[in-house]
């Protein structure tokens, strides 16, 4: 599995190559922003590890360019700056995860695998039900053409509903899909998930069928 590592410090770069190599990844190491943008834009990578403080073009600009060009590979930012505002800025720019330096290689590998697992099996496709379009490669939703970023859990919830349009998903089924267990447990958690989702995509996309579960509205005006 090829990953692109972008790091301008030669020691850290070599560490990434060897550590990720040992974990079974094929690593392309790039040390400046311009080349990173070019490589990411023209070649296919399973994932990208991106340093932010890069010569020529900073990491966030590289990331924004990729995302606006439709590049959907998962990106893990690896930066010396660990402030939450900076993490939020990275996530807003399209990153999927964020790690602060100095880092432990074991943790980096584990988070990278987690990212890859999340997108595994998602073919590049858009499923449309009513006003909702779900981009299964970028794990985003669009309502009337407006793109909305979803959390992994929200995405999985909508993914379940879009795969059974018109049918009601019961809490147990939702729990199994979300958590891998049929134990609905705290159904309030699912209600809270739907409440938060409705704030993002609007109140009339997901319908509550009292006592039964949730379904997508197919013919919402």
């Amino acid at each position, binding site marked *: 599995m090829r990953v692109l590592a972008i790091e301008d*410090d*030669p020691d850290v770069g070599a*560490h990434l190559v060897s550590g990720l190599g040992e974990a079974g990844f094929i690593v392309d190491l790039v040390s400046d922003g311009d080349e990173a943008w070019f490589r990411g834009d023209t070649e296919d990578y399973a994932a990208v590890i991106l340093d932010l403080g890069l010569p020529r073009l900073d990491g966030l600009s590289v990331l924004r360019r990729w995302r606006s060009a439709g590049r959907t590979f998962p990106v893990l930012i690896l930066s010396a700056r660990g*402030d*939450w505002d900076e993490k939020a800025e990275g996530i807003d720019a399209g990153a999927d995860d964020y790690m*602060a330096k*100095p880092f432990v290689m074991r943790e980096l590998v584990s988070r990278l695998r987690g990212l890859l697992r999340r997108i595994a099996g998602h073919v590049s496709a858009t499923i449309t039900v009513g006003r909702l379009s779900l981009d299964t490669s970028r794990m985003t939703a669009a309502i009337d053409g407006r793109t909305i970023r979803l959390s*992994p859990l929200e995405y999985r919830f909508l993914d379940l509903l879009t795969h059974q349009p018109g049918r009601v998903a019961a809490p147990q089924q939702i729990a199994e899909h979300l958590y891998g267990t049929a134990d609905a447990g705290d159904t309030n958690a*699912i209600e809270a998930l739907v409440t*938060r989702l409705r704030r993002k995509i609007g109140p009339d996309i997901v319908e509550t069928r009292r006592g039964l579960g949730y379904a997508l509205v197919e013919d919402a005006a």
Partner: protein
Amino acid sequence: MNARSFHARLIVGAALAILLALAVAGSGLVWLFQRHVEHREALSMEAKAKELLPGLRLDAAGRPVADTKPSDGRFWRPAGSLYWQASTTTGSIYSRSLWDQTLGSPGENTGETWTLRRADGPFGHRLVIISRLIRPDASRRPITVQFATDDDALVQSFQEFRLETTLALCLLWVVLVLAATLQVRLGLRPFGRVSAELDRLRRNPAERLSSDHPHEIAPLVEAINALADARASDLERARRRAADLAHSLKTPLAALAAQSQGARAEGATRSADALDHTIAVAQAALEAELARARSAIARESRAPREADVAASVERIVSVIERTGAGSMLVFDIDVEARLRAPLASSDLSEILGALIENAARFARRRIAVRAFYRAPSVSIRISDDGPGMQSGRVSEALVRGARLDETGPGHGFGLSIVVDLVSATGGTMTFGEAGLGGLLVAIDWPFDPHAVPEPVA
């Protein structure tokens, strides 16, 4: 009252100056009074002398003879307190009041106008005497005429006047000293306010002296404020440089970690262990310095600090729900619309980030974030449905460097950084049991959302 204080010096100085002025004024008054009374006595005696002088002549032997005598009964009563005497070198005539006594000689410098003197007189009295020469016959020797009155009554009235004046002036002194004290107090009150404000500035470097002081001390106040600003900006610059330095050391530390990994791969396990230990110590020092810098800047910041709570919560949750443990959790967010909190947005992000990330490590499925205003505080409640925390572990969690979750990622400074930062921004943080079953973290900042934020100096 400190002898070195302005207050004491001014009051003691004013009291002494007033005392001196009143003493001089009192002496002057007594002297004027005495002079006035003596003058009146002299005039009175001169008037009485007018009864004697027209009838005064010399007999053939050159002795004075009075055809008319003053009629006041006191001249006729022995020791009657009024006396007269007319004398030449050959003889004298007296008022009956002198009985067998005489008035002393007035001295050589007696002229033809009345002169006043004091002298001991008959019957053990002290007298006020006026005397002059008179020439009934221009060709013959002059007659020395003296009129006298007892000085005792005058002396007594002088003494009474002196006593009353002294009492009145003492009373006046007390009143004036009180007035001076009041004046000094009022005059120095601005300094007292400066002193109180300086004390506040010393305790909280973000404070400044107010700008409504009297114009006489305004330059001093401005100079102190400018000094405090310069100190604050130097301090902030130094702290930011320390923070930048700490950040800039993180990549070299990562490089060092890489070399440690390399050494380990080559079998140099002991060297790699030593290197890893050093890296951990350095990282701990860096994180501590960064946290200290952030807290200090938050504590001393003078900029109007207000964060949009809903926006901050959403930003942080958007990071946590996409990464790590947070990606499997539901975030139940209930924040009052347009709620503001009295701290910088970046500080609120750090607090929320560390707390929600910590909650995400322990939560089973759900994290609830509530934020609301209940006068007089803005409150944030973060709770999870995890296992919760035993009370003993709460204090453990607050020790810098301690970690609650030894297995997960993180450097272990999260909660202690949050405690510092909450305290630096004037808030309080408490732990409890959440309704969801896990840990409840409650943060409250005293805040008046209707107050106008103070302008940046």
